[in-house]
């Protein structure tokens, strides 16, 4: 079987508050790791967007990945009311023009993941077809259910869901076609195959969580799945390329 074209939806760069000595902090380190593992592209967020200030993080992200055509920017969203970011329509359009995505950190950034708080932002992101990512540690399933109900056209990728989620996830997948899961951490026994048989390979995307976690495990989740090559290619990178509007 030819090698899969991996597009990592969950990588980061930047100097973090509590780095480990072995952590990759810059673009060169991340690219070297991607080369070794065989990962073609990555959607990258900057730690400063999460741990310091989204505007500072966005500027650093664009500065650091500028000119590197294998890396795509993932920005942090905030409630429009505080006007820390450009107005939602402008912000969403800018992200779309860069073929990027938006990640939400409602716990870390201390806001409510509801319509009053960020409904306008999600409307704009949905309109511009910008995918939104959220780590399950930053939200919960009732919030995700409400968000999907209010924004049926928004592409939402849930990260780090782990292996106890099917009873929470399957009912949502029965109703919402725009919910995606990072399968790097999914971990359900033969779960990737079960999801594909029930809901299709379009529901899963590949993510590593580099440099906090290693890439070999998430890759093996895809490469060893008992699926067709076409299904594996979708999960490895095809689904994310489609969502971001990246050319094959």
């Amino acid at each position: 079987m030819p090698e899969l074209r991996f597009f990592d939806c969950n990588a980061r760069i930047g100097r973090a508050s509590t780095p480990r000595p072995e952590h990759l902090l810059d673009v060169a380190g991340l690219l070297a790791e991607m080369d070794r593992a065989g990962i073609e592209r990555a959607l990258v967020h900057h730690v400063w967007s999460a741990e310091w200030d989204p505007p500072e993080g966005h500027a650093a992200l664009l500065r650091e990945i500028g000119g590197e055509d294998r890396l795509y920017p993932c920005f942090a969203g905030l409630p429009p009311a505080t006007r820390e970011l450009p107005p939602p329509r402008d912000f969403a359009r800018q992200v779309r023009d860069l073929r990027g995505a938006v990640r939400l950190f409602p716990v870390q950034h201390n806001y409510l993941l509801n319509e009053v708080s960020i409904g306008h932002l999600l409307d704009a992101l949905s309109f511009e077809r910008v995918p939104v990512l959220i780590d399950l540690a930053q939200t919960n399933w009732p919030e995700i259910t409400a968000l999907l109900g209010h924004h049926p056209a928004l592409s939402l990728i849930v990260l780090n869901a782990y292996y106890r989620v099917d009873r929470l996830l399957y009912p949502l997948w029965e109703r919402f076609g725009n919910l995606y899961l990072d399968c790097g951490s999914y971990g359900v026994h033969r779960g990737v195959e079960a999801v594909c048989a029930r809901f299709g390979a379009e529901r899963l995307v590949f993510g590593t969580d580099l440099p906090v976690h290693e890439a070999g495990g998430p890759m093996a989740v895809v490469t060893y799945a008992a699926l067709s090559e076409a299904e594996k290619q979708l999960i490895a990178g095809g689904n994310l390329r489609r969502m971001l509007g990246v050319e094959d």
Partner: protein
Amino acid sequence: MATDTFLDACRLGQALAGELIIDAHAHMGPWHNFHVPHNSARGMVERLDQLGIDACVASPHAAIGPCHLQGNRQVMAAEDEFPGRIIPYVTINPNYPEAEIRAEIEHWHGLGRIRAFKIHPALHNYRVNGPGYGPMFEYAREHSLPVLSHSWAGDSLGGASLLSRLAAEMPSVTFLVGHAASSWDMIEEACREAQARDNVILDLTGSQLLYLALEAMVERAGAEKIVFGSDIPFIDAAPGLGRILAARLPDDAKRRVLGLNAQRIFRLPGR
């Protein structure tokens, strides 16, 4: 660039030919807390085949949960159905009367079926050095058997330091510290204990692996002190296998971790 057969297998999803791979930490059956597809022994063996895993050493969820008697019978039946592929742990729940535990051990001893023990101090809410485990340790000591214990960082019931103290008291028993790579705190503690005691072995089971954690563990504790474990079918075995295949380690170290150490510890035949 030098070819890395193990990394290439991971990138291509290929079962490794000619390599012994033993999963030292497996379960079996359904679990109350979440959906486990294809959780039967057959469903597990099908997955082992896909991944090129020769055998797994298993303790059913029933055993680490409410009924060790049911679980032990389940895994013995699985071994009968898939000899050489499913290796049974005898699991002990120390909350039951000593007479029952002794009778259970005696039952499987009489059939010559005890290869290793599995305990889960967290789910059974019982300290690993409590008296309820006494009959099991007595048998394990007498027969020089391995014992796999669930463990976690800061675990007051079965932490690596506590297991290591027992290992010092029972040099004939090989203690496998479960989930030894689950956090950097756990790695520090587990590697320290593995360095200090010949009979403390580290199990890699966990849903994810921290970046360069396995490489750090090999450097600190040695490749001969680490075994591959996955939790299958509690967790799929692919990520646990993939992170060893993709590690920045010499082939010899990967072979030890993937299967040679478990072969020695569980006294299993080669391929």
